[in-house]
């Protein structure tokens, strides 16, 4: 591992739902500007880990720290204010609003003006609105949805909605982005384009943590991979290391494959 500074630290996090152990004793770190993937078979605890990191779920034990701030006990919107923004596995748009309005909602963190200014339409509020509109158009252009800008987000195809979801997350000006299975349901060319987007996001200095099932995609894009199985970390390392790790092969393909 390189000696870059650490953005997020997950220390001995455990999540139990009654008797079910979703995550047991998970510890790893994500460096600033790194692309880290969290992989594992279905039910391994990946989405649960995301929920803990973004405040949607309180861990049973352990702690998560982001840039020296402990996240335990913070509400999701407070964590979002720290610059830690996530996307969701299922459809994650405001379905009845246009794509453009979706992004304006997503730009909430940039648009904070005083209530009175907004109601009276004072110059400060107007300037802020202009800036938001400009930014929303930029983001739409960036994900390539200009032609769909004024369609209801709910009417878009699955892949397009995913793009809106990412643009929305980016609208919140993250310093770290957590992507939950962003390319599931996308075809090969859409996935390829998405990989470009992820690299582009990283080049803007945004740290990325990715949960994904599409192995070729994970292997291409990741700096480092953390493998979860049954709530435990079974391997961690660069794509090359992970590809040849017997424990990982066993988790995915079973005993026979590991011996073969």
């Amino acid at each position, binding site marked *: 591992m390189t000696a870059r500074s650490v953005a997020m630290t997950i220390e001995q996090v455990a999540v139990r739902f009654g008797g079910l152990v979703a995550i047991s004793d998970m510890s790893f770190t994500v460096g600033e500007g790194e692309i880290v993937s969290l992989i594992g078979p279905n039910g391994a605890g990946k989405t649960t880990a995301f929920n803990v990191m973004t405040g949607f779920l309180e861990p049973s034990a352990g702690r998560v720290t982001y840039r020296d701030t402990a996240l335990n006990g913070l509400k999701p919107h407070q964590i979002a204010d720290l610059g830690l923004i996530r996307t969701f596995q299922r459809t994650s748009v405001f379905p009845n609003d246009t794509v453009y309005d979706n992004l304006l*909602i997503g730009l909430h963190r940039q648009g904070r003006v005083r209530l009175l200014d907004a109601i009276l339409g004072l110059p400060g509020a107007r300037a802020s609105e202009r800036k938001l509109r400009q930014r929303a158009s930029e983001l739409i252009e960036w994900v390539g949805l200009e032609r769909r800008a*004024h369609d209801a987000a709910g009417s878009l195809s699955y892949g397009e909605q995913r793009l809106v979801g990412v643009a929305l997350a980016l609208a919140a000006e993250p310093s770290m982005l957590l992507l939950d299975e962003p390319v599931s349901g996308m075809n090969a060319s859409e996935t390829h384009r998405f990989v470009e987007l992820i690299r582009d996001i990283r080049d803007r200095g945004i740290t990325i943590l990715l949960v994904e099932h599409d192995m070729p995609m994970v292997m291409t894009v990741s700096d480092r991979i953390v493998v979860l199985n049954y709530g435990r970390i079974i391997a961690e390392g660069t794509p090359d290391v992970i590809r040849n790790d017997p424990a990982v092969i066993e988790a995915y393909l079973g005993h026979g494959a590991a011996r073969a």
Partner: protein
Amino acid sequence: MRIALTILAVAALASVPLWLRDPYLLNSLITTGIFVIGAMSLNLLLGFTGQLSLGHIAFFGIGAYVSALTSLGFDVGLPGGFRLVHAPWPPIVGFVLAIIIAGLCGYFVGLLSFRVRGAYFVIVTISFAEVVRLVALNWVELTQGPLALTNIPSIGLPLPGVGELTLRTKLQNYYLVLVVALIAYLLIARLVRSHFGRAMRGLMENETLAVSVGIDVTKTLTLAAVISAAIAGAAGSLYAHYIRIIDPEVFAFINTVTMVIMVISGGKGSLAGPVVGGLIFGLLPVALRPVMAPEAQWIAYGGVLIAILFVLPRGIVPSLAQRFRRSRSGTTALAPVALAETAVKERA
């Protein structure tokens, strides 16, 4: 386009007293206008945050009582032998206090219920209205209970240098209600188009996602509740000073239901919806009075509501707007950028 329609509607409403001489009809228009303001405030919650306040009349009634008591004065005993004595103040002060106190009530109801939301908010608001009604009914020393507060003075506008203009006639009150309604309309319009309004819409459509982009649920919903309650309080104050008598019946559940019907039929989540729905259901009794007994009228309202929602399921205004857009699109193929620009202009 939208601006032209608005100006036309306002001009039409402002011209009404010039050609309508019938005092009964003018009176109906004034009370309808007051209820339209109430319906607009309800729409801010129901249409733009998705939270149904089934005790909305409580804020209206509180506004009415606060304003009436401020302008009438009172002398009540408190526990421990103290007495609270208040000498009458001008009604315009009562109007301002009505807004402030109703807004405060909205704040506490919001704070209480928005941690859980949805059905809980409905229950909390119903209970709140019932509790307030019982207080108004039983705290006889303050509210006169079922004997009602009578002789409430008409509202007066302080004119610097001239003194005070007391609004006694129907004509004056008509314009007062129209002006307050316009202010409420503009305030709600500005609010829902600002980033506060977008936060509300986001929460209504996809709360998880809204929270993940940094929107504070409790704060946003409480803000909507405060402004909604304050506007309802203003309407209540207008009501008290126009009717000049109020009793605890003002808190009746049926009054909330009337406002909900106005919002749903006109179209929740549309700015003009409660105005259109409010005018229809406010003036329907006037139209039906010669031909139907009051009991039969209630059945007719039900029929009208069902008919409206059957033909225009999203309410009158949104459904018609959609049809209009559909009939217009397809004839013009604008470039996406141009579309974006027109959208920006339409909103501004």
